[in-house]
């Protein structure tokens, strides 16, 4: 699936645009940060399950059946989903705006 020469020219233009480097580092940094948060919480939780299962069943307060485990999981379901929403909002807004601008500039200059 090779690109045409005019496409290659656009790719080269885009690469030389400092805004492209900025887009990539911003978006990649953001995605990496969010991934690290998810993976840390998720595998941290799994390690608690594996090594100190007693903590999972501890109740948050006397007389309530909401345990550490149930609360932590509900938190993960909601929090991870909120993170996806945060990423989608920023990527579809801020990042895509920069992308559109970069591509438009590069295509214009080539023609």
């Amino acid at each position: 699936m090779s690109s045409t020469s005019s496409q290659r020219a656009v790719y080269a233009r885009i690469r030389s645009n400092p805004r492209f480097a900025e887009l990539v580092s911003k978006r990649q940094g953001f995605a990496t940060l969010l991934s690290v948060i998810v993976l840390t919480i998720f595998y941290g939780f799994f390690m608690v399950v594996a090594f100190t299962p007693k903590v999972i069943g501890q109740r948050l307060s006397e007389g309530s059946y909401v345990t550490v485990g149930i609360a932590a999981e509900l938190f993960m379901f909601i929090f991870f989903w909120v993170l996806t929403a945060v990423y989608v909002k920023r990527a579809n807004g801020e990042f895509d705006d920069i992308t559109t601008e970069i591509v438009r500039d590069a295509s214009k200059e080539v023609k």
Partner: protein
Amino acid sequence: MLARLNVLLLGLLAPALSFAGDAISATEKQPLNLHAIGMFVVFVGMTLGITKWAAGRTKSAADFYTAGGGITGFQNGLAIAGDYMSAATLLGLTAMVYAKGVDGYIYMIAFFAGWPIILFLMAERLRNLGKFTFADITSYRLNQSKVRTMAAVSSLTVVCFYLVAQMVGAGQLIKLLFGLDYTIALFVVGALMMVYVTFGGMVATTWVQIIKACMLLAGGTLVMILAMSQFGFSFETLMDKAISVHSLGEKILFPGSLLPDPVTALSLGLGLMFGTAGLPHILMRFFTVTNAKEARKSVLYASGFVAYFFNVILLMGFAAIIIVGQNPEFFEGGNIGGKIIGGGNMVAMHLAKAVGGNLLLGFLSAVAFATILAVVSGLALAGAASISHDIYARVLRKGKATETEELRVSKLSSIGLGIVAIILGIAFEKMNVAFMVALAFGIAASANFPVLILSMYWKGLTTRGAVVGGYSGLVAAVLFVLLSKSVWVTVLGNAQALFPYDQPALFSMPLAFLVTIIISKLDNSAEAQAERAQFDDQYVRAQTGFGAAEASAH
């Protein structure tokens, strides 16, 4: 036993797995369920109507493989949820919460947590680089023939194992729910799948998955609300009663036997998370949307539905402890605490009957059947795309096949896959197919995922590295599962497993990465240099979507 249970649970996304466990041996043909059959006939009528409509819109290869790339993020999100949540999600996970309590919830978070990662690391690059199959991405700057052949081999392996597991599960479930004969059930599933895929392609498959996802969400929610109304919608009341009657008592609040050690926990987490990210039928869904924006939205909606539904299932499982577990009507011989009629996986169905009578039971049964159809259709389409787009059009014909020829091969392939699925389903009827889903996930995580992610992120990847690494992952995953307890002992009847864990991902996935990276680094051929040089353009396209496959106009 624990390890086996893990494999079992791993496959809860796939119908077969849960049935493969306690239900398979216990499946007895039930009396004909007319409500269920009636509602199922309505579903089939509706989906066939859609297929007819879709057939009129399926003219080009792009229409067939990706619905012309015109699916919206919301529709695709529902379809992904429909593809991802199988009948066993509903039945198996409810049963797990019923039997083990909070352990089931721990499994559900593992099924869920892969989605944010797919979004952050893969979704937009998949859409920007891919066209019809994920091999479009891995072979983007590498040797087309070699890399596509490797991707097609591992994809078809995944699809076949997954299909067999689904078909066996489908046969068992339908026998149980509808009172139909196993073989007849397989022919019904296989035939409907062939009709949807061959005539309606991705358009029909997507809509079958969307309708099914709506039915599943609605059915589950209704059962949950009716069940919770018996406890005044109070979680405390529910738990208080559940703990007082459950044989495990307070222990249902603690992790039990399902995650015995860190290795199992980690391997399971890795396998689920990255296996999902390497399943060809899930990856293919990312090519159906208009652009990267919609691809991201798909994940947002899909993960929202999945997260919501898992929490519904948690409540259903706990409610079933009291509503089903204390009702002699649902136990063989009316013996509470004895054997549940139809096997452990029927808990969700019994709950539906207890709170909503035969009508709700019929509806939920129809949902389960619809679910199986939606999942096998997605699989068959992904398999057909591998055969026609990768093997036929690119490897055999070197890209010289016309669109009509490629389309004809893809339709023949879907019919072929349907026939293969029916035959294998019949052949494996009496076998414990639990290992097959573990294998499918293991291969997806070990052969597809490493090469895919490296091709998108690492400039140094070469054809030699990708091919050797991909095949090592494939072989390692197959070998580890073969030598594990679930095949070596359970299926082959040996005394001792040679590989101590049932889930191979923790070992086979790093191996594939390592081999791919080392071989690529050692590769200094002229081709390798050229391949590395092309990464920069690919990188720009991955990041910006410039040059990406566009939605076809209708």
